[in-house]
Structure formats: C-alpha cells, structure tokens
C-alpha cells in the first residue's frame, strides 16, 4: 500500500486535532463533571396529575436543603407550567420536567438551559444563571399547530430578593 509522506503528515495533524477536541470533552466530563442530560427515569405521562412529583400542587421552584433550587415543571400544549418561574441568580438550579402529551423541547436563549422533553421520561437538567433579568423559556421542538405559542417566563432575581415560597 502506498501512502505519500506528505499525506502521512497530514493524517497525523488531523489525528492530533481530533485528539485535542476529544481530550477537552473528556476533561470537562471527568474533571469538571459536565454531562449531557440523560438519567433514564421513566414516568407515565398520561397520569402525571395522580403522581407524586408532577401533581399540580407540587410544581414550581422550591429551595432545597443544600441551598440549591429545584424547579418542577409540566410541559404540555402550549406552555411550561407553572408559566411564571422565579429563580435566584448564581445558584445551582435543577429543572425536573415531564411532558403531559407529546414531544417538547425547552431552551432559555443565551443560556445552556436546554433539554428535550420526551413523553414517558423525566428530563433533568442543572445549570445556574449568572445574570438577573427576564428570560423567555421557549419550546424548541415541533409539538403541534400551536407550537409557535409555547413559551413561559423565567425571571432571574438577585439572590436576596428571591423568596423560596414563591
């Protein structure tokens, strides 16, 4: 088999570049603990209202014992419920979201708060919001004719102004 010396050099360069990219990903995964969402937890999307975690009175933002915040949401045509969420800035926030009907996706623009919401599975994503302000929380997966209208409001407030009871 004939490989030109110049070509061989190029293959080494390419392999080094790929190794660099993969090295960064492995570093952030192993050392910085950055992973894509994916906890493989199942839920019966048809009976969320009867369940423990996603019944109506359990939804919303709650302070946790460790100082973090948990936001429990139901995604359903056409909104994320409850539709108005307040979270403190610079604090780890864990979203737990289940769909009551079809496939949805959620993204808070300009942040990495993003996950798919698949009926039958619970989506979990943890992030923190460094800048206070009002953010739209958009559905980014086609879910029906009203998909354009599916969004809710996320308000990031200064830590001292955040009230856990809200």
């Amino acid at each position, binding site marked *: *088999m*004939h*490989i*030109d010396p110049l*070509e061989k050099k*190029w*293959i080494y360069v*390419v*392999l080094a570049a*790929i190794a660099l*990219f*993969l090295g*960064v*990903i492995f570093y*952030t*995964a192993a050392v910085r603990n*950055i*992973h*894509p*969402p*994916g*906890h*493989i937890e*199942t*839920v019966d*999307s*048809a009976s969320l209202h009867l369940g423990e975690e996603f019944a109506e009175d359990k939804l919303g933002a709650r302070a946790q014992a460790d100082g973090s915040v948990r936001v429990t949401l139901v995604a359903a045509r056409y909104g994320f419920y409850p539709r108005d969420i307040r979270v403190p800035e610079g604090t780890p926030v864990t979203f737990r979201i289940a769909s009551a*009907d*079809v*496939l949805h*996706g959620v*993204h*808070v*623009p*300009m*942040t*990495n708060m*993003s*996950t*798919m919401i*698949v*009926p*039958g*599975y*619970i989506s*979990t994503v943890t992030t923190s919001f460094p800048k206070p302000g009002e953010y*739209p929380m*958009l*559905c*980014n*997966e*086609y*879910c*029906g*004719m*009203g*998909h*354009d*209208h599916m*969004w809710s409001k996320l308000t990031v407030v200064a830590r001292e102004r955040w009230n856990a009871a809200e």
Partner: protein
Amino acid sequence: MIDSGVRKLALSHLWVAFGAFGLASVLGLYQVLERSGVITAMQSPAVYFASVSTHGVLMAFVLTIFFIMGFGYVTAVSSLKTPLWNPAFCWAGFWLALAGTGLAALPLLIGRASVLYTFYPPVQANALFYIGATLLVVASWLWCVVMIVMHGQWKKAHPGEPVPLPMFATTANAILWLWTSAGVAAEMLFQLIPWALGLAATVDVGMARTLFAWTLHPIVYFWLIPAYLALYSFVPKAAGGRLFSHELGRAAFVMLLVFSLPIGFHHLYMDPEQGAGFKLSHGVGTFLVALPTLMTAFTVTASMEMAGRQRGGSGLFGWIGALPWRNPMVLAGILAAAMLVLGGFGGIVNASYAMNAMVHNTAWVPGHFHLIFAGTTVIMYMAIAYYIWPQLNGKALCSDKLPLIQLWSWFIGMVILTTPWHILGLLGQPRRISSVTYNSLLTLAWEPYELAMIVGGGVLTASALLFLHILAKSQRQSVTEQSFEIEYAEYFHPVTRVPALLNGFTVWNLIILALMLANFGYPIAQFFLVKTFGSTGWGY
C-alpha cells in the same frame, strides 16, 4: 458505453429526483416568506407545517434516494464496463419507489402528515404516509442488491484485480444504506405502522427516537458519498489532472462506512432516554468520522494543486487561480469544499455537547445541515447531472454559461440563507416555528436576519428552477452527438494491487456489527428491561 436501457433507467430516476427537488425548493421559498411574517395574509401554521414536512421528505428521501439509485446504475455500468445486472429487477425498484413516494405524498400534501420528515411520535400521521415512506426505503434496498451483486460478479471475473474506485465507493454506499435504513425500517414496521393502523394502542417514544437516531446520522453519509465520488473521480479529471491518492481514497470510503454508523446519539445529546456514557461513546465516533472527510479534503486539494500547476499556476496560491473555474465540475468542487469547511466548523460545535446545549434545536441546526446537505451535497449532484446529462442523452448541454450562473447562484443563495440562520440560532431562535409570537425584546434582534433569509430563499429557488430549465432544454435539443462514455480520473500513483481489506467489505461488515452491538445493543435492550410507558397517538 452506456446502453439505451440503462440511459432510460437512469434518466427516469434522475427526473423524479430533480422534479421533487424543484417542488421542494419552491416550498422552501414559501417557508422563509411565511416565517418572516412580512405578508400577514400568508400566516398559517397548518400550511406551514405541511410544507415543512413535504420539503423535508422530498429533499431528504425522494431527491436523494432516486438520485443515488439512478447515478449508481450509471456508475456500475460505466466503471465496471459490464452490462446491468437484471434490468427488470432495477425497474421494479423504480416503480416501487415511485409508488411509495406517491402514497406518502397524498397525506403530506393535504396536511394529514404534518409530522416532519423525522416523524416525531406521538404526533401521529395518516398510516398511508408511514407505509409509503417504508415502501420507498424497501425499494432502495433492491438497488443495494444490484450494486452488491455487480460488485461481486466483477470481482469473481477479475480475481486479484482492484475493483475500480467509483464502484468500490458505490458498493460501500449500498452496504452503508442497508445498515443505516435498518433503524428507521424497524421504527416503521414494529412501532409506527401498527400504531397508526390501530393495531397497537401506544408507542414508546424513547425507543422510536433511539431507532431513528440509528438512521439519522449515517443517512447523511449515504447522501454524501456520491458527492465524494465526484470529488475523487470527476473533479481532478475535469481540472486536467489526476487523482493524487487512490488507495487512501478507498480507505476513506471504508472509514465513512464504518465510523458513520455507530454515532447517531449526537442527535440525542439533550434527550432523557439515553445515558451520558453512551452519548460520550457516540460523541467519540462523531469526531472520528471527521478523519475520512479531512483525508478527502487533502487528496482532492492535492489533485487540484497538481492540475493547477500543470496549467501554469505558481506560488503558494497561484495554482488556485489557474484552475479551469469555467468548468462546472471544477467550479462545483471548489464551491462544495468552501461550504464543507463552513458547515464542518458548525458540525464540530454540534458534536461537542457542552456547546451543543446552546444551539440545540435552534435555527443554527437547519443552518448547519443546509450548508452540508443542500450546499456541499446538492451542488455536487448538480455538477454530476451536468456531466452525465450529455452522456445519457447524447446531446451537449444547451449552454456553457448557464450552468456556471446556476452553480454560482446556488452557492451565493446558500450563503445568504445560512449565515442569518446560524446567527438566529446563537440569538436563541428555535427552529421549526411558523411565526414569532414571544412577547420578548429578544425577538427584535431576529427581524433583520429573517428578512435576509427571504433574499437567500429567492436566489436559491431561482437557481433551482434554472437548473431544471438547463436539464430540460438540453434534453429537448434535436442535435445528437452520440457519446455515451463516462470517464473517471486516472491515478497519480499507478495502481498495481491493493490490499484485500481495501477491495472488499466482509471484514468491515463484521467490525460494523461489533460496533453497532456495542453502541446500540444495550441502549435498545434497556427499553425491554425497564418499565416504560408508551404514548397514545396525538393529533397536531
């Protein structure tokens, strides 16, 4: 020499492919207009999502499958210099594919299958849509059989000789497609069709998404391999040179086949039904598949540089200017490479899951795949059509200038369309919305880019229609030249023999089997091991 039977077979396939392409392009222009909200009377989610679904199915399945089948028959006959194996079987594939397309088109066009080309259960389409799409895929398997049989027969008749590179690549693509389409075929046959017919009450959406992800990445390489074949075999020849490295070309096609299959989970990075470990493993494969593409970039660039220097180009970059830019194949090759560089950069962002979280399902994503597919791949399909059209019809193209205008306008239109799309994605605009209704200041920043996209869509649609015009006008000419030969690039380093591993696929199939078991075995098995909850069908 391509006999008249093969010419008719190929032209039939190509006209279906390009007809679908023309219709889908017009729908694309409607979509950018509707989405921008400039003409209020146009606003209609029902029409918009029916259009997006039709555009996706026509471009991703109908254009590609028919083009690849038609061009594949031409490649097999012309590179092996043998007659077509079993023409009746090939025609059966054509009519079955056409029937499938027709069945799927009925519900699509009347808005009864607005589930996008990715199907998205539990939103449910009319059963005819799923059945038609499945028939189209099954028909394409007949083509795969023909390619594999012709490859095998040639090898038996020429023991020890290397299979010509164009046929080696085409057979790799046939095998790739059999592996690739198994995922979506399983989703259709075991999940969506029984569910749409009412035989199954629910569908496990997690499993459906996993099976679709099996198909969703390698299908891109199924589309791309004919474009790569042209880069290896037609572009250096058209530039007046030879192919720099023939053996590494074969190695690149083998790598595309092996590495593109077990990596589909980068489409599921943000999904809850698969774990982080398997996502990482698929992520590694996603980066590895860049290797054959970058090898191709090197080989093709080296071939072009030699051609450019032979034509009197000198200096570090002077050879680029010396290339015959007025040759449609050379021009398309250069423009395809430019779009591949831009699209490949975006692809690295998507493949890195920490960055992907910022752009997942935003307008960035259609921006990315329009560059790679509608840009790089389709512009090479166009160049291939310009090259083989005279050979299939026995008539020269109707104009030397029009194809150049058409290719340039396709490139310029694609840049005007996809640059704003990428920016909109970074500004957080979701893909697949028919209007902007969010009560947020953020959306003000989106408006100028939406308007720019209309210009891009307009240029592209005009270019697509010009393409069809050139093909139709050339075919209708009365002068006949009678040259039915297709010529492939010769090699810079003479080929004596190649290692058996680069002349067949048995070992590679076993390696793929092992990789697929490792990367999809447990992720699919888990749906049978844990208690999952299916979804009933939903309208839209």
